């Protein structure tokens, strides 16, 4: 998908040029190796200069906007702007929020062939892709943890259903990037099993308490909610490239039921039998969702692309391949 191409390019540069044992890498063609060696190591300073180019495609930004998302940029981690006033106080407030835990698994495999600097470049780039796509869809990065992220969606004056839709869209796009584009690039370098595990839940206005965790400078504005905790649990439970969502997410997103299937083995990741509280979790079929989106086009090979805001001028020779031998006629009496 073109949307993440710049991120993919950086990762490819690092993978191509920084491999410690080139002779173990059978998938890189000799000419590529020679070229990579000639270019020298892809260093942190190369990365820093390239990183400034990293942004998301204007098409994606436009789609987020047309879905009603307001991008959140220049954030201070752990300090959600809508609840900043709580900082330095012991006050609390109840307000809904969507909690999403994103983990990228399998990056440990990178250490087998790459040094720490390369690891940092690659991990950072993947995280930046996740951060940027979440922010474009109104997500707030609460915390960066290990290879993963903890993101809030929604806030003051943000419609709950819309925020849920934005959250699922951002996470679906990121999952597609990892499962398809990134996986392909990694596999070309003999690194297998890079995947996401995502858990998301929605806690309503009466179920989420906002307040300050920690003290003074060692603090963040946090949520105390069963649903934030459940989102973390769901993330831990998720299989490769799965997004697990709570019942509240399903109810709020108002998407077609065909995108959800009840978590198979264990219907309730959480239940409180004493209080008869049973909370169903679902696997969200994000690829089916993306392919159904009016903003996404799907090729017959199943690859997806974000529809551009302005159609490209068709490449005539490439279009010719799709037209093949087509020669139309009209069943009309002309005289």
């Amino acid at each position: 998908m073109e949307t993440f191409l710049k991120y993919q390019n950086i990762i490819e540069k690092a993978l191509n040029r920084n491999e410690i044992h080139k002779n173990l890498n059978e998938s890189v063609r000799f000419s590529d190796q020679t070229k990579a060696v000639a270019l020298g190591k892809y260093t942190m300073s190369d990365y820093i200069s390239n990183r400034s180019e990293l942004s998301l495609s204007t098409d994606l930004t436009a789609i987020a906007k047309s879905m009603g998302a307001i991008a959140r940029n220049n954030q201070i981690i752990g300090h959600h702007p809508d609840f900043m006033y709580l900082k330095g106080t012991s006050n609390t407030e109840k307000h809904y929020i969507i909690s999403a835990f994103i983990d990228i698994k399998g990056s440990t495999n990178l250490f087998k062939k790459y040094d720490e600097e390369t690891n940092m470049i690659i991990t950072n780039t993947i995280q930046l892709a996740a951060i940027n796509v979440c922010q474009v869809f109104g997500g707030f990065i609460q915390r960066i943890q290990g290879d993963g992220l903890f993101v809030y969606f929604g806030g003051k004056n943000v419609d709950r259903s819309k925020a849920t839709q934005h959250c699922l869209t951002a996470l679906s796009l990121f999952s597609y990037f990892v499962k398809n584009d990134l996986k392909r690039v990694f596999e070309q370098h003999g690194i297998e099993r890079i995947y996401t595990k995502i858990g998301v839940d929605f806690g309503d206005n009466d179920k989420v308490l906002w307040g300050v965790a920690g003290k003074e400078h060692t603090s963040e504005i946090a949520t105390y909610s069963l649903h934030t905790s459940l989102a973390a649990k769901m993330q831990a439970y998720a299989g490769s490239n799965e997004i697990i969502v709570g019942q509240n997410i399903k109810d709020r997103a108002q998407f077609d039921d065909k995108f959800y299937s009840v978590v198979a083995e264990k219907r309730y990741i959480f239940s409180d039998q004493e209080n008869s509280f049973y909370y169903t979790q679902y696997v969200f079929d994000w690829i089916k969702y993306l392919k159904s989106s009016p903003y996404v086009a799907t090729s017959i090979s199943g690859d997806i692309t974000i529809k551009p805001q302005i159609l490209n001028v068709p490449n005539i020779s490439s279009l010719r391949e799709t037209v093949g031998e087509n020669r139309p006629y009209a069943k009309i009496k002309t005289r």
Partner: protein
Amino acid sequence: MEKIDHMQRSKLDNDIQEVLEMFPKMKLEVENKVKILLGEVDIFDGANTYVDSFSIKVIAPSRYPHEFPRLFETGNKFEHIADRHISEDGSCCVCSLQEENLVSQRGITIKSFFLKYVLPYLANQVYFDSQGKWINGDFEHGDLGIFQYYSELLKLENIAEVIEFLSVFNVSKIYRNDDCFCGSGKKLKRCHQGTYNIFKGLSKKRREIDLFELKSLAKKISKKIKEEQL
């Protein structure tokens, strides 16, 4: 007979399912037992670059798979006129009537229809918008298109010769070792066997209708010539 109908139905259902998976924005609707696929298809070029999307409706035929499905462009992305190859009933004329006949006799699945006719036809519309012409040319409308098909197939420019060919070979056969119909003196198998096979591959009904249309076209042409002479 019922068993055959049931088998055809289940084949159609399976084939539709395959299309719905390949084209995720298409949906199935059933109206008076007729299965209709509605929704949007995305056009990609040979380099897998997205080109455009079209809203369409495809009606599964009753004699599936031995009848052509019908395609309708429902988004009005291009003008619905004969010059854009839209028929009087609003359906898209994706190919000549004769090709439709040949393909239907062999059988055509919904998936093949999408891949071989729907996407190429719509991509050709994009090409026309950009270039003002059709990639492989097109067929004239109505009876003129029928004449054009046979004229190109038989390499005959004169309508009277085409009518004569159809009149003769609609009712009689020639064999591989007979002299070729073109008058070259060669055996058919060493000359126009391929052309003859295509011609004989058309259903008898199709050939008879075409002969009738061509005769009526010839009359219209000679009448027009006479009028012009006067």
